[in-house]
């Protein structure tokens, strides 16, 4: 079942067409939303939430028509890109308030606020004013307020923006955990494609208001043919010449990693590579069937 389906949707800001005749079915699970700046990612999210009214077309979120935004927002959690909080509130009061705004009774909202804050890893800091929070804590509290009312679909706009490596890893683990086996689908929008790669199963690529590509990430990453990647300790020109002679043309080299055209099965290719390396007394430190990174796939899709 699709968590959201849009049919020939057009959204405009004045004369600027942000989404142009846009048709898509977003599937359950964790879906990444990719696209350059201004491609319409945030517009898509805001349309799903009913912030923007489409000028043409129709759509539904979790089986609810776009016009019934109140019901949609009941079922959807939204983590905006911008830093946001309610001024003058402590972390836990803020999250409980967000729960109350979603219709939870006061006591339930407070109980649930503590639960999701625990879950998002905000410890004692929850009793402090949100304005004193660091970037990482602000991202966590934004996630907490988005999931407090138990949504079925979570819309995350740049959840790892401004986080340091440790914070990024933790945030991605949180997103991955809530989106797998908890009955919660997630739509993540990010410029950091490795983040999408780590959390999502599927990706949508948007370009200039149009859907450019949609598919499972592992399919997007596939490369034509059967190239393999070989990692040596140090770059070696001799190896390069000899491996070509062995019938494996070099596609490209990055530092000491060679991407080679493979003649057949990986095992056969490995034997050729090892034989060549052995002649030169080099050791092969890595060998695997080549995949492109999501970033390469993305850059290819939009060009």
């Amino acid at each position, binding site marked *: 079942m699709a968590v959201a389906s849009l049919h020939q949707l057009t959204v405009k800001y004045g004369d600027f067409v942000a989404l142009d005749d846009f048709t898509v079915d977003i599937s359950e699970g964790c879906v990444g939303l990719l696209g350059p700046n201004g491609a319409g990612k945030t517009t898509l999210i805001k349309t799903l939430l009913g912030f923007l009214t489409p000028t043409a077309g129709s759509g539904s979120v979790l089986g609810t028509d776009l016009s019934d935004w109140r019901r949609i927002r009941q079922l959807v959690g939204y983590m905006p890109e911008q830093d946001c909080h309610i001024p003058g509130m402590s972390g836990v009061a803020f999250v409980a308030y967000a729960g109350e705004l979603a219709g939870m009774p006061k006591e339930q909202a407070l109980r649930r606020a503590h639960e999701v804050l625990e879950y998002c890893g905000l410890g004692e800091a929850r009793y402090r004013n949100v304005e004193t929070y660091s970037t990482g804590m602000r991202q966590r509290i934004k996630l907490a307020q988005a999931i407090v009312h138990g949504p079925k679909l979570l819309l995350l706009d740049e959840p790892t923006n401004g986080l340091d*490596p440790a914070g*990024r890893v933790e945030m991605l683990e949180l997103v991955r955990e809530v989106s797998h086996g908890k009955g919660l689908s997630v739509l993540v929008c990010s410029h950091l494609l490795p983040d999408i790669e780590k959390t999502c199963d599927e990706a949508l690529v948007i370009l200039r208001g149009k859907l450019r590509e949609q598919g499972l990430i592992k399919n997007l990453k596939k490369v034509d043919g059967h190239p393999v990647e070989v990692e040596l300790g140090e770059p070696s020109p001799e190896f390069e010449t000899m491996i070509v002679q062995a019938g494996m043309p070099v596609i490209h080299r990055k530092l000491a990693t060679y991407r080679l055209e493979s003649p057949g099965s990986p095992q056969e290719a490995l034997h050729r590579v090892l034989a060549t390396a052995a002649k030169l007394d080099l050791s092969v*430190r890595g060998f695997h069937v080549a995949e492109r990174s999501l970033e390469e796939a993305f850059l290819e899709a939009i060009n």
Partner: protein
Amino acid sequence: MITLTGASKWYGQVIGINDITCEIGPGITALLGMNGAGKSTLMKLVTGQLRPTTGDVKVLGMDPFANPEVYKEVGYCPEIDRFYERRTGRQFVNFLARISGMSAADAKRRTEEVLEIVGMSDRASKPIASYSKGMRQRIKLAQAMLLDPKIILLDEPLNGLDPVGRRELIDLLAWLAGQGRTVLVSSHILYEVEQMTRSLLLLHRGRLLATGDLKVIRSLIDKYPHKVRIETDDAKRLAGIITEFPNIVSLRFGIDGVLDLEVREPDIFYRNLNKAILDKNLPVNGFQSPDNNLEAVFSYLVER
């Protein structure tokens, strides 16, 4: 190019950087660290905006603090993103050129040159308010290039850029480094750093945790044995052979014919593995090291 000797900086009682000694040479060097690790402080010391509390900072052999001679050779792209929003990018750069002491004609010529370098010549006539993050970043870089500096420092230049903008900026930085300039880039997005350089400067809570080439740093971390993952059609047979190798710390059977190993002295291990595969015709589909990357190195070092 840049030398720090026992440099420390404290803001009142708050730690900035603590006793850092290092040298930064030409090429791209990445400055890594968590938020608050002291990256920006280090940049400000090098650009002469701050004076170290103790220790020495030398840029091109001179003390950078309030030293115009140094300023001429150092270009700086700060992290903050504030402009005169209503002016155009060209006006902004030209204005800074005039402030740098160029004559009107020189400023005009040089402005066009740097805008050309950063690829903004055609777009610099629009007000800055309408620019995307990538364009703003380029304008910042353009103004840093005005005096044709030998050293360029960029504080979080890739923050918030989309993949296209990021790729273009990385290429631009590589080009600048290729001309023999010293480029110091701070970032906390590790995979971006990996695309730029292998030369690191890792700060943690104000201290210098590691410096040098990523590969060298990785091989020096003894506490965490080298991880190797092997995909094979016959895991049992392969495991039997591998356990004979010296320096195997652990071996674990994964699903779908995956063997996860931890080894010490990876050089010897790989040699043995290569030989075994060839000689015994083992059915191996691939092998690689999942922790031979910056992310793993970073977490190993920081969690220590």
